[in-house]
Structures are given as structure tokens and as C-alpha cells.
């Protein structure tokens, strides 16, 4: 399984990596990007199975990244989960309408991530 982690904070990316390991996904290949533009460049050349992104980032934020992914026929089916501390019900509704599979509060717990990813895998993700 290849998972992209998109966050401008190296610490946040490392934290999500650790959560994935603790959630039983230590064998996953992780692709990191510091913003949406960098993520798009990486996943276009090396496709991933799942993308976890922050919302607030320089260059290209998480909402814009989601729009770009869903507008690209080759990437549109990619499951995207947003992990952010800047979410609220209105923003979550907007992100879900744009095609996000879920919105999680930062810092996500390994248990929550585990439950979410297991459900995703069981549903044929």
C-alpha cells in the first residue's frame, strides 16, 4: 500500500507516519509532500492508494489539492482524507462535497486512524 502524507510541517508528517506504524500500517510505503503542488507532482508520477492531507499549507492548500485531484480523471478515484486543526462543521461539509472521504482532527490518534483505514481497506480501498 502506498500512502501520501501532505503537510508543511515535517513534525506533523512524522507524527502521522508514527500513527500509521502504530495502527498496523508499518509496511506501507509513505510518500511525503510539504504542500499540495508538491503532492500533485509526486502522485502523478508515482500513484498512491490513499492520500492524507493537512488543510492550511503554503503554495497550495489542502482544499485546492482536493479540487485538483477530483478534477483529474486519472486521480479522481484517489481516496483523500483531510487531517486538520482548522476544521469546523461548515468546512467539513465543503470538503465532503468536494469529494473528501473523511475529515479528522489533528492530532489524529493511532486508534482512530486504524479504525478509519481498516474500514477503508475492508470496503475494497
Amino acid at each position, binding site marked *: 500500500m502506498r500512502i501520501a502524507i501532505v503537510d508543511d*510541517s*515535517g*513534525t*506533523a508528517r*512524522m*507524527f502521522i507516519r*508514527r500513527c500509521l*506504524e502504530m495502527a498496523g500500517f508499518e509496511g506501507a510505503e509513505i510518500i511525503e509532500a510539504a504542500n499540495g503542488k508538491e503532492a500533485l507532482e509526486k502522485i502523478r508520477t508515482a500513484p498512491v492508494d490513499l492520500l492524507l492531507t493537512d488543510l*492550511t499549507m503554503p503554495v497550495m492548500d489542502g482544499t485546492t489539492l482536493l479540487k485538483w485531484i477530483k478534477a483529474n480523471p486519472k486521480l479522481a478515484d484517489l481516496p483523500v482524507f483531510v487531517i*486538520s*486543526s*482548522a*476544521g*469546523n*462543521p*461548515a*468546512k467539513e461539509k465543503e470538503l465532503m462535497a468536494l469529494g473528501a472521504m473523511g475529515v479528522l*482532527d*489533528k*492530532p*489524529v*490518534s493511532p486508534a482512530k486512524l486504524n479504525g478509519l483505514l481498516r474500514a477503508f481497506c475492508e470496503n475494497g480501498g
Partner: protein
Amino acid sequence: MTGEKSAWSAILEQVISEIMENTAFTEVIPADRTPQYTPETRGVSLLVHDPVQGEFKLVMENSLLKHLTSIVYGSVSSVVTEQTEADLLDELLNTIAGRFLSAILPVDKSFSLGIPENSNGSLLLTDSYAISRSFIIEGMYFTLAIRGESLLALENRPR
């Protein structure tokens, strides 16, 4: 007003406990006093630009920051530098401020934050902050303080 329980205390304690417990995987205990921090104490400040103006400050004992960094970086903790520790402190304050503002602002209201700025933690003048709450993780202290008139005025407005 330092140390006084405000209407936001419960929200703040819940947000901080959840964030720190998810980061440290251990219990966070509210402290009944703000400790006298030493010059080695680490600190970071973050301004709120919009829709209100204010400042969050996070101060943490150096030993606690090193402990948290070692947890986050785990087996690759050999790559940890002072900058890595500062980045973790920045990320923690960004997350605390974001979650707290999401909890107190109207549900459809977005907000804008500045860039975290490192500051001397021992210079935490709690009297200049309207809200200041301290916590303990494994015997080590950290404090979150908030100031800014328009930010604080939200406390008395219906959400």
C-alpha cells in the same frame, strides 16, 4: 486574572488534554499553579490575525519537549535537532490554537493565524495574559496563555 477559572477553561483543558495525550500517549494533568520557569524553558507565540486579534503562547519545560520529540520521532530520534524540537513546539501550538478557535468561533467562521515565533519561555509574564493554564505530563510542566481584547471578548458572546 491568572489562574482564575474562566468559561473557556473547560474547552481549553479538553483541547489541550486531547492534543497532548494523542501526542505523548500519556495522561495530562491540569496543574493548580504556574511554575517558575527557568531560562532553558522553551516557548513559542502565535498571533491570531482574523476574524479577531489575539495571541497564544505555549511554554514548555525543555525536558518535556525533548520527551515529546523522542516519542514522535521514535526509532529515528537520532535525527532530532534543536530545530526539530522547535518545529514540534510550533506544530503543537498551531494545533492547540486551531482546535480552540474552531471550538469557540461560530461554526461557519474560518480564521487566520500567523507564523509561530520562538520566544524565551522563562519570560512568560502570566499577568499580561488574561487566560493562563498549566499542565503536567510525567512530572514536567507546560503552560498555555492567551491574550488579545477582541479574541477574549468572544467569551461573552453567544456562539
